């Protein structure tokens, strides 16, 4: 009988290589930028947090690239600090959300019909309530501050991912390769680790990466309307909120640079999410 024919390694040109280079490049750049924000924030120490009244509301210049605010704070340093705070909030909140979503999806699909009905009800309730109102209520009830914002964002962002993961697991349970594994004596735990996880991994990664900027934006929104972080904390939401008072006076740099920085971070996460999704797909060569 003829053996299965060996195929040479695909050539290093073409769509696959171009696509991989682009996605990997974007993902790497994203990681570097985010790492830069974290390291920059740590190395800055209290720089940018101390007032310098001699340089109040100075426009961008070689001495202050992003200008200064009404207290003479360097806006570049405050933006880096703000992004670091946002990253911290986003990372923790998004991770908690993904863990809640994965746990509920597994619970719904493995613990019988009543568990499935209960999770479906919880998802419907959570999706039925206005998102921002729920965030404000939770943050307000917990007294505001970083922990309150993290918890508020975390407990309001799991429903959509739960629904996606539940559907994926239900589909996998009925697939022939899972049934074949069962007939080969594999337990549900072995199948969960061997078959379910590799299929859920891209959903979890992309879910985490997409929740991340969402959480950051909500943190900024909550802080902007006064239900989020403390005013002493130079979060992006605080910077944008403060900048409003000076926009009409022509101090455009107070809002523009923090806003653009936030946009850049969100785009970085988008690039990382796309890169990871491509890398996790064995059919990537054909895409």
């Amino acid at each position, binding site marked *: *009988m003829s053996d*299965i024919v060996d195929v040479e390694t695909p050539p290093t040109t073409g769509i696959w290589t171009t696509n991989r280079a682009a996605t990997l490049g974007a993902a790497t750049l994203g990681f570097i930028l985010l790492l830069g924000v974290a390291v920059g924030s740590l190395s800055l120490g209290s720089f940018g947090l101390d007032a310098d009244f001699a340089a109040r509301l100075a426009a961008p210049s070689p001495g202050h690239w992003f200008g200064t605010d009404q207290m003479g704070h360097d806006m570049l340093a405050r933006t880096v600090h703000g992004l670091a705070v946002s990253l911290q909030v986003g990372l923790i909140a998004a991770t908690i959300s993904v863990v809640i979503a994965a746990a509920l999806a597994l619970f719904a699909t493995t613990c019988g019909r009543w568990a499935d009905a209960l999770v479906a009800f919880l998802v419907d309730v959570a999706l039925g309530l206005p998102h921002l109102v729920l965030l404000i209520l939770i943050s307000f009830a917990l007294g505001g501050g970083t922990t309150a914002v993290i918890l508020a964002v975390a407990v309001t962002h799991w429903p959509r991912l739960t629904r996606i993961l539940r559907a994926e697991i239900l589909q996998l349970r009925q697939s022939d390769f899972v049934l074949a594994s069962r007939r080969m004596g594999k337990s549900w735990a072995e199948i969960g680790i061997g078959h379910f996880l590799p299929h859920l991994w891209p959903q979890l990664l992309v879910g985490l990466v997409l929740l991340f900027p969402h959480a950051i934006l909500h943190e900024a929104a909550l802080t902007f309307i006064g239900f989020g972080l403390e005013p002493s904390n130079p979060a992006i939401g605080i910077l944008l909120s403060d900048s409003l008072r000076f926009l009409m006076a022509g101090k455009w740099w107070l809002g523009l640079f923090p806003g653009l920085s936030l946009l850049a971070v969100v785009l970085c996460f988008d690039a990382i999410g796309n890169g990871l999704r491509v890398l996790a797909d064995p059919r990537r060569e054909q895409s």
Partner: protein
Amino acid sequence: MLEATDIGFAYRSGAEVVCGVTLALGPGQTLGIRGPSGCGKSTLARLLAGYLEPQRGTVHVDGEALGKGWCPVQYVHQSAIVSVDPRWRIGRIVEEGWEPDEASREALGVPRSCYDRYPHEVSGGELQRICLLRALAPETRFLVADELTAMVDPVTQADIWRHLRQRSRQGLGIVAISHDQALLRRVADSIHQMDGGRLTELEPAGAARPAFAAPGRDVANRL
């Protein structure tokens, strides 16, 4: 002995796809099932292998229902691509249940050099051989082969069936489902005709008769 007694199955909407099928297969026997598309052959195959639970009747091996652990009845799907995890490499797929020896791999033409490839990187026929190799563990006592060699060339088809006949002589019972009447007449000890979810005819080995000589059934008449 693999025994199906009066089994019936209907999908969510509609009539029974398999209606009151009873059959028995002993070790080393090969039973052929033929029939037109949609007559319930694949559903019967899935019922025999435990992929589906019969809504009535029973499927027993040596008087016991199919339980946990390695199922003594293994099934090779007519569409191999859906029966393998697309995110697993061939090596992991083949060795999921057991580690095939060199002779088995050689007999079915599945070299170790293909172990690093993904299912979408081999052809349908090659994947079918991979699935067959995976199913032919020493613990497997009955094989349900659904259009096993429909996607391979005649030479490979002959090689696969030569290997299965050899396993059959060692005690493997085979349910061979195929549209290919000539193939079934070569490999099966007896042939059942399936029509409308029922096994309507039993043709013993060597009792081959021209289908047009005495067309007693609707199918033969239409043909």
